[in-house]
């Protein structure tokens, strides 16, 4: 495939969606400090180009599934900032009715198959989603995201084997941000190049610069084409970085300030901004206006969440079984 050229629209789309992820999560961090958001909360700041570059390369009915670091994925799939924020608040108006919280965003309507809390647990699920599309003769592909840490789960190896054996239309995306909690990639394997894990199964496997939306888009577009053509799965090791700690409680003492600063110099959002300005596709004022609009969307999501009710206690007994009158044990 020839090298892709990207339009003004794509760049502006990236700018907007990445700006939304960034501002939304900065706000979330603040709200966590105010205890409006509870439990575990994992921020995606720094990794935005991975999701943005994937989404621009996909079609509307393609599917996504990821781990607990899922706010950006949920937003990029088209779930409203209101519904994602309300979920963080645990409100009944959230995209999982306040039952999931930060780690468990879901939207069937937006083909978002969820945020999952058990490391690696979503890897077989992603292949299964692709299996169903293949079974029905659909043309959709599934993007299944997981971390560098999740690479080490046995489920990954079992799934890779079957996905290749059955040529499932799935794109496995390792979001390699260098760390699994406090454990650096080097400390988890003697194979530092994570994409090589696919080679044992003859899976087309590549490493990708995750700080550049362009590189991500290109890699995903090729992988999606392979999937749609019936050529099976692809493994993409997308190299990225999380600026914040693993979760809100992690002071991240296992890495240096210099390391973090070095990555911030290649900030994915700033790279998109610079490209737009260099190409004169928009002025700084235009971009400020977009940013201002996004700030308003985020503030509106907060107001909406503040004014939404918590789920009623009776909601404990809804959505557990699809069967409407399941006889729960009630003391």
């Amino acid at each position: 495939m020839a090298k892709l050229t990207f339009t003004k629209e794509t760049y502006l789309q990236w700018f907007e969606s990445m700006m939304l992820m960034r501002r939304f999560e900065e706000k979330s961090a603040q709200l966590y400090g105010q205890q409006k958001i509870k439990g575990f909360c994992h921020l995606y700041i720094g990794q935005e180009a991975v999701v943005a570059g994937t989404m621009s390369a996909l079609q509307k009915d393609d599917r996504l599934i990821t781990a607990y670091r899922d706010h950006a994925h949920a937003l990029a799939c088209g779930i409203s900032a209101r519904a994602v924020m309300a979920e963080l608040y645990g409100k009944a108006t959230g995209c999982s009715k306040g039952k999931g919280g930060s780690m468990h965003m879901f939207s069937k309507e937006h083909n978002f198959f969820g945020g999952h809390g058990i490391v690696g647990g979503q890897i077989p699920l992603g292949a299964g989603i692709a299996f169903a599309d293949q079974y029905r003769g659909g043309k959709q592909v599934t993007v299944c995201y997981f971390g560098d840490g999740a690479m080490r789960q046995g489920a990954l190896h079992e799934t890779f084997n079957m996905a290749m054996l059955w040529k499932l239309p799935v794109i496995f995306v390792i979001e390699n941000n260098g760390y699994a909690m406090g454990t650096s990639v080097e400390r988890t394997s003697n194979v530092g190049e994570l994409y090589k894990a696919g080679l044992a199964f003859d899976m087309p496997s590549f490493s990708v610069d995750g700080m550049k939306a362009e590189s991500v888009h290109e890699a995903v577009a090729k992988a999606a084409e392979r999937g749609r053509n019936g050529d099976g799965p692809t493994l993409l090791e997308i190299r990225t970085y999380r600026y914040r700690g693993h979760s809100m409680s992690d002071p991240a003492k296992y890495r240096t300030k210099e390391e973090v600063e070095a990555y911030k110099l290649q900030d994915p959002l700033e790279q998109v901004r610079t490209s737009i300005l260099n190409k004169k596709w928009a002025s700084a004022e235009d971009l400020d206006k977009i940013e201002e609009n996004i700030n308003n969307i985020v503030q509106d999501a907060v107001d909406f969440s503040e004014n939404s009710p918590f789920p009623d206690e009776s909601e404990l007994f809804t959505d557990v079984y699809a069967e409407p009158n399941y006889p729960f044990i009630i003391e």
Partner: protein
Amino acid sequence: MRSIQFREALREALSEEMRRDESIFLMGEEVAEYNGAYKVSQGMLDEFGAKRIIDTPIAELGFAGIGVGAAMNGLRPIIEFMTFNFSLVAIDQVINAAAKMYSMSGGQFNIPMVFRGPTGSAGQLGAQHSQAFENWYANCPGLKVVVPSNPYDAKGLLKTAIRDNDPVIFMESEQMYGDKGEVPEEEYLIPIGVADVKRTGTHVTLVSFGKIMKVVLAAAEELAKEGIECEVIDLRTVRPIDYNTVIESVKKTNRLVIIEEAWPLASISSEITYMVQKNAFDYLDAPIRRITTQDVPLGYAPTLVQAFLPSIQKTVQTVKEVLYK
């Protein structure tokens, strides 16, 4: 006596036993360089080195099984699960290997190891991070299951668990690690399978274990203000269960309420209820009652968490009901 945190009591037990016996090692996610996800193993890498305090990749099935294999070949592994929620990834090795090995091999390979970590919910963590596993593991012959409720018991029981020649599941709680309690400097051991009567009383017996003991003791305190004297029993281990202490207490109080954080079906409370009705039927003046969690996965919202868990208020209420007050 000095007062130390639950996590410090665990750390002392681990360190003292590791100093005693070279064959003991601690393995799990973030136990070494990060000093433990909940700081239980703080400083232990410095003292014992990377050979004995071992960080693993996120690969529970693998490292649980490596622990069992090492135990078959003469070592005494301590495997930490960051939480028991993640032990589900490893449960095949815990049940099919660790628990059954001695029996399957006709008594040739015993498994002297400990699987430890927090169990149960810990605030608003959502369904996949909030499950209690005491009854799951207690169901399995070959395992012992220890669930301490305070720093003193945690230290004494963990030391015993490490010295035990069978596989022991040792369950803690994120919501107890910071709790302080009196722990003597001198060495002591607490036997597995012996309940502790935390409070004597004549009106009703309350039975619980682990983190929920805090709720039960607070409820007993409330009830005492109203003149209701509860006998409070901390089981401390749920396999084996000290049935006798419970039955003897019920013979005295004639009423029993069991409180636990677990789904109701086939829980520890179901089991105790069976044994008490079988052995003390004629002594009961009211049906045995229990307070469990609700029979559902735990959702994230605070309203759901609150309605899901046993509470002081639910305990007080239920006690009054068995007393027909």
